[in-house]
């Protein structure tokens, strides 16, 4: 019976996540078909288990008077606590998954996950991670294929005088900006994300980030830009902002390198979007 509950629970959890759309807070929707198929497989397995349990119950009733029973019973007694452990463990993700609220990755994770600006501040360390602001795919040694891709991206995002980074083009667009900062200098970029204070930034500076998800939120990373405000601002970590500004570059001491910076002209605080993450579409 407990097996049926677990299988049914898995089916219910996945069904629930798909029905409410919350599945996007756990995994990249590109892979959602996998969990969607799993709903049916778990449905099948739980029905199978139910029928089997039912038939076993009947059989056990018939065999009750045979010597078999006593033998099996002693086994069951020995393993009661083990069963409790095994099935309890499998019930755990079901219970916490269904009943606990879904947490959103935020600055807390930025700190914990290691891409921590405080550490990068120790500028004696040339190995400190500064890959963080620059999304993925640039290879040190240039590859023709990559050039082709990024050039087509470059054309796509580089047309016109402004670039709006939205949920769909956030990662690829940002990547293009980091690859060809020169192309975007003095152009208008608008984007949104949550605020994150690096330790070294002044009152006028902060970072605007979003979590990018490749497969599931366990492999999420932060991507974003540094912002320069014309006046001191007092936003807390995780405040969501919609900003617009012109791009320039600056030498950022903690990273020991020149990075793009957005000189913000218009900004407002916004509510955290329904879908806080951006996804890597390949």
């Amino acid at each position, binding site marked *: 019976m407990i*097996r049926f509950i677990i299988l049914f629970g*898995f089916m219910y959890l996945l069904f629930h996540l798909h029905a409410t759309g919350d*599945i996007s807070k*756990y*995994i990249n929707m590109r892979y959602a078909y*996998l*969990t969607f*198929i*799993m709903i049916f497989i778990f449905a099948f*397995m739980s029905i*199978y288990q139910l029928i*089997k349990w039912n038939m076993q119950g009947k059989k056990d009733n018939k065999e009750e008077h045979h010597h078999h029973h006593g033998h*099996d019973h002693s*086994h069951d007694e020995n*393993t009661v606590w*083990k*069963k409790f*452990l095994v*099935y309890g*463990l*499998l019930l*755990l*993700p079901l219970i*916490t*998954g269904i009943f606990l*609220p*879904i*947490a*959103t*990755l935020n600055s*807390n*994770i930025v700190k*914990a*996950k*290691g891409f921590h600006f405080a*550490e990068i501040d120790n500028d004696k360390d040339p*190995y*400190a*991670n*500064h*890959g963080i602001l*620059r*999304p*993925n*795919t640039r*290879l*040190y040694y240039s*590859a023709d294929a*990559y050039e082709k*891709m*990024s050039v087509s991206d470059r054309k796509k995002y580089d047309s016109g005088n402004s670039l709006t980074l939205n949920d769909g083009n956030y990662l690829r667009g940002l990547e293009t900006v980091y690859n060809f900062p020169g192309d975007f200098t003095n152009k208008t970029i608008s984007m949104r994300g949550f605020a994150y204070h690096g330790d070294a930034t002044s009152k006028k500076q902060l970072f605007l980030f979003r979590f990018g998800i*490749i*497969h*599931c*939120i*366990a*492999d999420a*990373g932060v991507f974003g830009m540094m912002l320069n405000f014309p006046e001191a601002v007092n936003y807390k970590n995780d405040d969501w902002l919609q900003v617009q500004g012109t791009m320039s570059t600056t030498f950022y001491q903690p990273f020991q390198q020149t990075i793009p910076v957005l000189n913000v002209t218009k900004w407002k605080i916004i509510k955290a979007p329904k879908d806080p993450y951006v996804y*890597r579409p*390949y």
Partner: protein
Amino acid sequence: MVQSFLQLNSIFISLVIEAVPFIVVGVFISAIIQIFITEEMIAKFIPKNRFFSILLGTCMGSLFPACECGIVPITEGLVRKKVPLHAAIAFMLTGPIINPIVIFATYVAFGNSWEMVIRRCSLAIVVAFIVGLLISYLFNDDQLREFLNKKAQKAQSQANKKKHHHHHHDHEHIHSMTAMEKVKEMIDHALDEFFSVGKFLVIGAFIAASMQVFVKTSTLSLLGHTTATSILVMMLLAFLLSLCSEADAFIASSFRGTFATGSLTAFLVFGAMVDIKNLIMMLSTFKKRFVFTLIGSITVVVFIGSLFGSLFL
């Protein structure tokens, strides 16, 4: 604190959700092997020579698009069908790396370039071959298989001793079973396996999620000053993060500013072979001494291999 716990829970759930489809595919393949493939078939198929059987295992890995946790039950199924341990291990080590999905992901993550794909795959093959060879000399086959059988039975019997007894009984009459009965038997087997493997996935995912929330991995990247230490750091990071082999290439590519190609190769190869999730699952299948010897030799070979790679290639 509450927030950290909820985030831990979310990462934990997401790891479980992500891995469950692969686990289910894994237990079904394992069940198919168990029911439909006989030991005689395996005996005919697998060469007697250890070199060739390891080579075959390495190649077979590329046929199964399984990730590193889904492949453990499959390997267990193979070993129980008397596939030589070294061949099964070679299969287990290459399976998560040399398959179309992972190759494609690696290709894309590193800017549509083949270089990283080639480095990753060739190191994986070298590691699988050397480790397989080492295993074949270090562990006496028969002894281990006997033990594995016992251990497998024990793990299963935790869930239902009674039913497993019947299984063995049925196996003797497997040829006289109808197709329908065989399918039924297969589903039974897959379900048993799901419950015995599932709990280890849960433990592993929970530990991995805790690592992500509570351990500052940034401190790790500060340690990687020389080529050798940075390779070790990336291997440790791969172990702690427990990423699926389909996603780890993207994470590795975000480290490009920080770590050299050799360290990234180590990350991609080691992480797909050993991590917290699959260590717990291997411990559920294999003897402790064996698992630690296996991990020890993988560690040494990956380290030397990527050091060699970054110095000379």
